[in-house]
């Protein structure tokens, strides 16, 4: 199982096992990672699973799709170049160790 590392604002780390194929958001919510809400269940409808992807993974993860792009513009926390909605990042074995930072607010 690939692992995802979540880093909160205070620098604390949470490492979570993800199933290959499921989203980063789903793995976070199921394991109760604070700061990832995912109200819509991964439907690209709520922008409450915003993360900042760590630089070393930005190429592997890629950029947002069109729908996601619109939602990111209107989310609560600052949009940055490495902003993604974690419901739109499917986990793969290649992304094992993926590190994302959780914004202050969703």
């Amino acid at each position, binding site marked *: 199982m690939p692992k995802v590392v979540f880093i909160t604002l205070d620098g604390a780390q949470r490492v979570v096992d993800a199933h290959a194929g499921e989203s980063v958001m789903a793995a976070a*919510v199921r394991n109760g990672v604070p700061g990832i809400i995912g109200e*819509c*269940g991964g*439907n690209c409808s709520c922008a409450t699973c915003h993360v900042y992807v760590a630089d070393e993974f930005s190429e592997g993860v890629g950029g947002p799709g069109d729908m996601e792009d*619109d939602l990111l513009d209107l989310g609560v926390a600052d949009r940055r170049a490495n902003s993604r909605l974690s419901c739109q990042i499917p986990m793969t074995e290649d992304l094992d160790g993926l590190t994302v930072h959780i914004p202050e607010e969703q």
Partner: protein
Amino acid sequence: MHAGTLIVGASQAGLQLAVSLRDAGETGPITLIGEEPHVPYQRPPLSKAYLQGSTELEQLWLRAPEFLAGNDISLVTGERIETIELTDGGPSGSARTASGRVLTFDRLALTVGARPRRLEAPGADLDGVTYLRTADDATALRDLQSDAESVVVVGGGFIGLEAAAVARAQGKSVTVVEAADRLIGRAVAPVVSEFYRAAHARRGVEIRVGTRVTGLAGENRVAAVELSDGTRIPADLVIVGIGVVPRSKLAHQLGLDYDGGILVDRFARTSNPTVVAAGDCTVQPNPLTGRGQVRLESVQNAISQAKAAAATLAGRSEPNDAVPWFWSDQYNLKLQIAGLSTGHDHYVVRGDIEGEAFSVLYYREGGLLAVDAVNTPGDYMAVRKALTQGATISAEAAADSAVALKDLIVPQTIGA
């Protein structure tokens, strides 16, 4: 406290209530009890990805069992509460399950949900006539659907249309029968209803509005559906999606006020203020205006109201004033709704209806009420943001589809 908090109903609202109560610093026992044999899971995908067969139930879990155990939330599955009583009017009392187990509690929360409305017609109990509410329903339906050729969907609401879309994508012959004169009539304006009628028709679904099911024919297993206009449609699978009825038995036993749902205030308190309730089973003031009575069936409402209920139990007053939002996935059409359009006197259409990317903004007396957005998430999100901020978007400005709605959000003019 030693018996702790009992939460009856282990779905979206109940799970959220348990988690939020623990987050609020509650240290006493929290017991979450549900009649289904599963860990609490997301229901919306049951009529979408899960029905297609592209998702397993474990992927729909709202929280892993390890998370619940780690937060000292006791989950009891496969047990239904049959009777419940309060000691001296509450908050403490005891509940008894169908299997005779007794659970005492210091405080009670009802998140009992709703059950599918049953089709009342001769032959409605034939094999092959199905409903879609639980994971077990969906598992049974996806097995039946794999062998079916002709599917009749009774009810042109969200569940029915989503199920129809899945069946059609699997190449089945599909007919949707709706008694009202348009689809999704309770949730969207006629212009959106008409769009969905046309969109399903374009994809080969036969839509029949303004006609009722008068009977289902077949030996043991359904073979045809008979309609009030005299038509007889061959069918080897019937999916009934004609709405839900809130579960009321326990509320009645407790003597709680009930009017089409358990009546609660903005803080999720029932008419007995020591008992809270949240989710599909409740009727509450409109979260945006604080007035009237609405019953909302949605994930968002279950979560928002459960948070309000948890705050109340934790001794804080945090009203449910979140902007309601909803979604529905059919084929490649993503409908996103923010706000409540009921009572609108004007609407504005943006975008391209024929091109299947448009939105409808609803107004009353010039004030923005809601949006229905089809494949236009930016419009949805802009309206949701405006409503959340108590801001507005003028109808005149919104009519220009070339301008992004997010650039048109302006503060509400008081008394205008």
